């Protein structure tokens, strides 16, 4: 910080900011932070900023803002007291008070930074391993993902599938005459597949309307034609039983 020059010489390189510069000037002047001689310090601050500029150092707007603020405070001190003295006085005091507070806070953290710096250089460092978790996990057997799953659970899951097929969500809530044959074919095939031991044709009916029966029957004819479903009628007028054939599974991915 010290230099042989009589004028307050600015130490290079730059300050960490305008507060840093201001704090340095105050310390150089050995004045009380609560009782800053604004006029003198403001001039020094402006000089320092000019010097920084001439040395092509980065002078951010923050420096200029604080310089302007200091000059304003200086001018207030110099000007004759205005008519509304009280008000202006309070405002000026507030400004000074705020500056002092900011300087104090900044000084405190600067000291804390110095503490950390001392810690960083003195302690000598410990180094740590970069643990390659993935490499470790390769050797670790993952927990059984089926933990707690029983046959019963699988069975219940399967029943849920069947139940959903029986409900036939999209079909049940649409008027039968709006159901396309394609959708009905898929619906019937799905249910027949889920009843490999056979299901009655009547079982296909959900609503019981004539139209539903017609569409279901057309769908069934389609499936019989393609050989995916086999129909048996043990006796005249008895229930028609439907069975999936081997071919039933031969639908393409597009279906």
């Amino acid at each position, binding site marked *: 910080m010290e230099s042989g020059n009589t004028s307050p010489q600015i130490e290079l390189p730059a300050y960490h900011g305008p507060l840093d510069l201001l704090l340095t000037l105050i310390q150089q002047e050995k004045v009380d932070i609560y009782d800053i001689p604004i006029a003198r310090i403001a001039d020094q601050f402006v000089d320092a900023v000019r010097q920084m500029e001439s040395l092509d150092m980065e002078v951010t707007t923050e420096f200029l803002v604080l310089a302007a603020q200091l000059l304003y405070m200086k001018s207030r001190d110099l000007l004759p007291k205005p008519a509304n003295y009280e008000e202006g006085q309070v405002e000026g005091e507030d400004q000074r008070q705020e500056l002092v507070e900011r300087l104090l806070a900044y000084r405190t953290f600067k000291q804390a930074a110095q503490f950390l710096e001392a810690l960083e250089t003195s302690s000598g460092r410990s180094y740590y391993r970069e643990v390659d*978790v993935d490499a*470790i996990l390769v050797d670790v057997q993952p927990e059984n993902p089926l933990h707690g799953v029983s046959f019963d659970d699988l069975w219940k*899951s399967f*029943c849920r*599938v069947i139940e959903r097929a029986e409900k036939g969500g999209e079909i049940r809530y649409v008027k039968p005459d709006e159901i396309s044959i394609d959708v009905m074919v898929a619906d019937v*095939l799905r249910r027949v597949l889920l009843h490999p031991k056979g*299901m009655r044709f009547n079982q296909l009916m959900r609503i019981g309307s004539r139209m539903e029966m017609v569409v279901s029957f057309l769908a069934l004819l389609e499936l019989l034609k393609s050989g995916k479903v086999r129909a048996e009628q043990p006796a005249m007028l008895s229930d028609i039983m439907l069975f999936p054939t081997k071919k039933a599974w031969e639908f393409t*991915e*597009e279906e």
Partner: protein
Amino acid sequence: MLFRELETAALEALLFVAKNPLTPELLGEILELGPLEIEELLHKLRARYAADSCGLTLLEINDGFKLGTKPEVSRFIEILYKQPSQALSNAALEVLSIIAYRQPVTRGEVDFIRGVQSDRALATLVEKGIVKEVGRKDGPGRPILYGTTEQFLLHFGLRSLEDLPNLEVGELRVTSLT
């Protein structure tokens, strides 16, 4: 030849932090020691690690050295890193039940049976090693066929798929809707 305590400590520290195995040449360079001395230090370290109360061990990999843990304690490490497996979702269980009984089966078939997309649930099952690809189906697009894995059999204590109890699907009394 003194004890070279600092160098031994440094050697251990270097092996501790190194990401890749360190060759004796590099170690010699850093510690400013010759190959014989490095060998001696490594030997010293190895002897120290031989103690039963020591969990570390000196590993030689491709002419380099690094630290590792002893096999005797690996089960403790497994506990530390054991990932609690998340319970399978209902969707995954549905997909699994279909695959278990209908295998080999394609994703399209599973989707069709469930009436909903199953890709996410299927991916989970494959990732967890419960279900795997077992081939390709003949036909357009030659879609992947899925089946259950060894792990699936093991979990249910089955010797083979034939041991799967029959699902009496036909017997299912369909809840009379409406």
